[in-house]
């Protein structure tokens, strides 16, 4: 048995400092007992004299004579197939009144890095039924594609629509949804749960809930538990896993709080210098491993403080993830749903999931052409506001109109509207057909001949 210490010398924010006599390992799991309660923590700094421990359930209620036990082991997650369908707390304990998970395996939650040489290149197209994603920012299986949003915008609806509609074309496979809530309100969480229940997704889901009034440090654990579960489902049980976690901003705030408590030298805007690495360790747990059937696709949601995309949280995320879907306040105000602004949005893996054999051969060219004129049309709005629409050249007027129609027809769609990729491309072509053919400079002539509505039906097969 390991020894119990009652030698807490200091309690500061989420940290306790403990004197001890036996060597304690870095990152070791620590149990702290106070009254009847058991809290868990992790060693952040260990030396001959003193050990610094972060306490996940918060230090509230701890005192200098709370009992501290170093377990000699790292934090592990109990896993078994019966975890599917469960609702757990942000630190992995049952929250649905059900029994503790009886483990078939115990897995360390830190997450070893996938060997880059063992990765399979993700390239299976996933149809979400949303044109601004499928058509212009295509998702592929094994991708990590965050939603960058702002307070009060319908990012949750977008995420739910994706979770409902996402499918690989022409395949029926076993898949699971993991939902990790970090610091969101009870109401928001219920919104997700109700939708999962309505669509039957809950039976295939594992839910981790850390709500706004749960301890902030616990949030450091939540995505790690979710991702450990995801790896188990994907790589042990061959499932395709879609993991949604929200809100990454709250997670990062917890990291900042921990850094401040440790009096670390802060990086940009007070966030720890290692936040990039920390986020990367979570985000990089998406992907596919060669020779395995399952996959992990990630949808992190984060709200940009002050709608500022240069804020460290979206900035560092954007540097790690494979693109981003931007929910725009301006489009939302115009009443457009989903209010996705394609201009700053990006799917970096799009190219490997589209084209012949995946979607359709003209997909890339159509997407590029739509982008080019939507962006130009947006710029022209500024100009038209100054000089008046009449002062624009004929060509510019066309481009301006294109941008408006693009928002109304391509971007805008119903909350339950599940468009096939071919419908999406068709809408794109119809918008482009309103421009003179000579303006379609990004599209190879052979695609114009085949897919342009003007030639529809005339092309040889």
């Amino acid at each position, binding site marked *: 048995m390991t020894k119990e210490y009652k030698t807490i010398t200091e309690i500061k924010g989420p940290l306790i400092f403990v004197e001890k006599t036996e060597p304690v390992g870095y990152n070791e799991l620590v149990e702290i007992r106070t009254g009847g309660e058991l809290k868990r923590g992790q060693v952040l*700094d260990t030396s001959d004299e003193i050990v610094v421990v972060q306490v996940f359930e918060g230090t509230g209620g701890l005192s200098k004579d709370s009992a501290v036990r170093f377990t000699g082991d790292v934090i592990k997650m109990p896993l078994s197939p019966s975890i599917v369908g469960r609702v757990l707390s942000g630190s992995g304990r049952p929250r649905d009144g059900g029994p503790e998970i009886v483990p078939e395996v115990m897995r360390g939650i830190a997450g070893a*890095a996938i*060997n880059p040489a063992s990765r399979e290149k993700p390239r299976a197209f996933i149809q979400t039924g949303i044109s601004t994603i499928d058509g212009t920012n295509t998702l592929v299986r094994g991708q990590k594609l965050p939603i960058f949003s702002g307070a009060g915008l319908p990012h949750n609806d977008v995420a739910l629509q994706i979770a409902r509609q996402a499918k690989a074309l022409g395949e029926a496979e076993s898949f699971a949804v993991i939902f990790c809530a970090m610091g969101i309100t009870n109401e928001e969480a219920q919104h997700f749960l109700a939708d999962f229940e309505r669509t039957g997704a809950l039976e295939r889901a594992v839910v981790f809930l850390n709500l706004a009034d749960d301890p902030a440090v616990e949030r450091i654990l939540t995505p790690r538990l979710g991702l450990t579960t995801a790896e188990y489902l994907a790589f042990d049980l061959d499932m395709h896993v879609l993991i949604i976690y929200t809100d990454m901003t709250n997670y990062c705030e917890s990291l900042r709080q921990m850094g401040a408590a440790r009096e670390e030298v802060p*990086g940009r805007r007070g966030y720890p210098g290692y936040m990039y690495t920390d986020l990367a360790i979570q985000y*990089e747990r998406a992907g596919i491993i060669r020779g395995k059937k399952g996959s992990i696709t990630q949808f992190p949601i984060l709200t940009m403080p002050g709608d500022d995309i*240069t804020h460290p949280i979206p900035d560092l995320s954007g540097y790690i993830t494979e693109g981003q879907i931007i929910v725009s306040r301006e489009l939302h105000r115009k009443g457009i749903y989903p209010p996705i602004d394609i201009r700053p949005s990006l799917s970096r*893996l799009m190219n490997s999931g589209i084209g012949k054999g995946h979607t359709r051969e003209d997909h890339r060219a159509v997407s590029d052409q739509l982008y*080019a004129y939507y*962006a130009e049309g947006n710029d022209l709005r500024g100009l038209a506001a100054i000089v008046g629409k009449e002062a624009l050249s004929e060509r510019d007027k066309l481009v301006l109109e294109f941008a408006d129609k693009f928002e109304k027809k391509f971007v805008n769609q119903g909350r339950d509207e599940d468009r096939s990729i071919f419908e999406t491309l068709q809408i794109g072509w119809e918008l482009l057909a309103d421009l003179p053919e000579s303006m379609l400079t990004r599209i190879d002539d052979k695609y114009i001949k085949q897919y342009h509505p003007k030639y529809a039906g005339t092309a040889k097969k």
Partner: protein
Amino acid sequence: MEVGKVKRVAGPVVQATGLKASMYDLVLVGEEGLMSEVIGISGNKHVIQVYEDTGGVKPGEPVKETGAPLVAQLGPGILTSIYDGIQRPLTKLAEASGDFISRGLFVDGVDHKKKWEFKPIVKKGDTVKAGQTIGEVQEQLLIKHKIMVPPRSKGGTIKEIYSGNFTVDETVAVLEDGTKLNMLQKWPVRQARPTIKKLAPTIPLRTGQRVIDGFFSLAKGGTAAIPGGFGTGKTVMQQTLSKWADVDIVVYVGCGERGNEMADLLHEFPELVDPRTGRPLMERSIVFANTSNMPVAAREASIYTGMTVSEYYRDMGYDVMMTADSTSRWAEAMRELASRLEEMPGEEGYPAYLGARLADFYERAGRADVLGGGQGSVSVVGAVSPPGGDFTEPVTQNTLRMVKVFWALDSKLTQRRHFPSINWLDSYSLYDKDLEPWFVENVNPDWNKNKRRAMAILQENAELEEIVMLVGSDALPEDQQITLEVARMIINFWLAQSAMHPVDTFCPYKKQFELLAAILKYRDYAVEALQKGISVEQIKSVPSKDALAKVRLEAEYEPILQKVMAQMDADFKGLK
């Protein structure tokens, strides 16, 4: 050799006592012997960065000295390898520990069991000096690996030299003084390998990218930085350069970036064919993949390991290009480690020596007379990832002080899906003047003239656009409206180049030149027509102009371009 004791563990940094190791010596930490490096010594305490995860390491565990710094193993078999930041082959790690990297594994950078056929090129009685090639191994079908006398050795007279199949450890030659030579060199990664003398950059490094070769070209042995916010095209550009650059060897260092990008590269390179040789690109490539989720100390080391391997092939007389994606992650690794040392931070928390480290790194690039005779080069292309896309931050600024070429990525262009999103007004190449004679001699006497003309049009265009934003384009004088149109053509038909298009991804010099010349020819026609009183609308709507847009997408473009130009001549003759 001493064995010390761990005193403290906090993240990737360990403090130990009882060691005699020198700065940057490799030590093995804990019961598992985790690979680590001494990065600070104060009093009786050694500060050590650990290349692997430190979870579970306890005070009191042993720290063993190795008596040597971190070295790269250099010998046949490096090509086509994929390594982590400390040159452990990732495929071997996967064999040892499965799909997830576990720790405490030792794997050599080159295979010590494999036999290579050594063909001597010097003979008994010859005198050889440091760096000189004594024999060759056919490492890849078209790439000979030169077996060289190690730099800094004395050299001497060959007493014995063998030919046949050997492992890298076996002796292939013996000198009069008894020195045995084999096919393996070990070189401390943080030290530059010596050359005789660095040479002026007078030969361009052809990339097949119009905006680069045509406007902001890189020299063989030169240095370039690509700064840009996320998603602006740094990685795609580095991968594109790695595919098409006319160099002999490519060293691609993925430093703190994405795993899937490395998977993509490893998937593509064996399948793509080097246009110069017809052989798979992988045969000339070496990849270092220390992704963002791999240990941060090994990320810090990866840049040096990659550079050492690059220099080694340069020493054989090859042109090498090293790309580092991203040097910001390297700088951040330095910052993360420095902050754990509780060093006094400089600007934005980076250590005060950031500028010096960047300088040392870029200084290792260059074209040089190599020790063994002949010339070789290491060109370096470093991606920079400025927080918030703001180029005033320390890593970008310190980098720009060192590098000669600046490809400024512009998120406004990205949003329009204009690729490569290299801003044509902010970017520069300081090799410009040095390279001009080469283009005149080897491509076309008008190369530089046309370039300057096109750049002037774009400059004027930028000024005019500001006016347009106030009054609209129709209010401009007619000749300026033409300038806007020609600028649009240069931007959309020439500067824009999709890396994803099977043909357009690579554009030979001749095609680059002819496409630009055609656009400038349109301008000449247009100006002439204006003088004849023909309207701007008429000039803008000649059919041949639009036809010009797609010539770049054609592999056999010459007849098509000829036809378009003949038509343009007819179009303008027909204008009334």
